[in-house]
């Protein structure tokens, strides 16, 4: 009788441990579900639609000066990164393919701050010579960059078109989609859609 009781008790204990683990996982999944779709947009820094702050910075890769925040011939993607951010490195090939896909329509500017020698080593190691690469703590502060990698899309007219924390290709593309659809962010787009759905659904609910 005792061995059966002990075995039964253990089955119950293990089942409960599995249940606790499953519950904590579900909490984690819920947290991920409620987190915004597409690139995470923060409220800090210049708002979408606002004039992008003006910067004139020297690029480390070709030693020329480039201006940011002025009407330009093409859209600029400001990509904030750091040599010691693993996710930023994972996104570098994606940036490369984005640059080749968009061609003349898009200028990709990598931005960071800190020791110039360290960044030069980073450029050489990851072969980033094709990109403009600027160092400016002021720009990071102006855009209120708190987490990396962070991307800001500036339109030809020099206004901020989309911005957000990007961790993967989908989120990076969501910024470009947001610009193409002329909405501030994918979240905003979903909200707009939701609203139109509600307005069209209203007559039916009255009947």
């Amino acid at each position: 009788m005792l061995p059966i009781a002990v075995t039964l008790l253990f089955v119950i204990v293990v089942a409960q441990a599995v249940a606790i683990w499953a519950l904590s996982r579900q909490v984690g999944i819920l947290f991920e579900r409620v987190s915004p779709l597409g690139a995470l947009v923060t409220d800090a820094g210049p708002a979408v639609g606002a004039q992008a702050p003006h910067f004139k910075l020297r690029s480390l890769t070709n030693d020329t000066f480039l201006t940011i925040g002025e009407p330009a011939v093409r859209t600029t993607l400001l990509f904030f990164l750091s040599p010691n951010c693993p996710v930023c490195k994972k996104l570098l090939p994606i940036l490369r393919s984005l640059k080749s896909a968009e061609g003349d329509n898009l200028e990709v500017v990598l931005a960071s701050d800190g020791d110039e020698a360290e960044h030069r080593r980073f450029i050489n190691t990851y072969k980033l010579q094709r990109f403009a690469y600027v160092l400016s703590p002021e720009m990071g502060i102006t855009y209120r960059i708190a987490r990396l990698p962070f991307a800001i899309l500036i339109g030809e007219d020099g206004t901020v078109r989309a911005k957000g924390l990007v961790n993967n290709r989908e989120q990076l593309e969501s910024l470009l989609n947001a610009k193409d659809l002329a909405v501030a962010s994918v979240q905003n787009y979903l909200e707009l859609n939701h609203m139109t759905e509600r307005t069209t659904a209203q007559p039916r609910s009255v009947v």
Partner: protein
Amino acid sequence: MRSADLYLDVTATIAACLLSLVLVRALLHKLSRQAELTGTIRNYRLVPDGLVPLTAVAVVVCEACAALGLMLPQTRVPAALLACALLLIYAAAMGINLLRGRTSIDCGCGGAAHGISCLHVLRNLVLALCAVLVMASGSTRVPTGFALPTVTAGCVLALWFMFLAFDQLLGNRTHASTSQYSSVWGH
């Protein structure tokens, strides 16, 4: 055989199996994200940049040896020593970075990426204690019969899922306090 010896065998087997599972999970995580592993180690800022790839290889090899060694009763005592050393080194690495205030670096311990906290250090110390149990018992036997293996397997399974739940809750903590993200921009 004295009953005290039996208890030692059971305790050592439970601790060794649990540690082995933890190490295998950490190892699979590292192997599935090889590209990020060097970045994670570099972010701890404890080894010179030139030695980072070597450290990555050493960490993976040591973890694999410890995990394999702990699975076999004959080799589990020396493997526990290796596992204990690894866990204490990780705890120290996290402790140093906590003191430096670099809490937003990826822990790299397995599972989803999340920052480090005192609870990670505590978890590693508890796991190191398990390794000490295996070493102190000096036991190289596994329990036989019906009752003791059942108890052992039950304990291992229950503790393993509790470990997974604890790890998940650690990951959830970062989600729950998104406003407290510290800056990774600043150096």
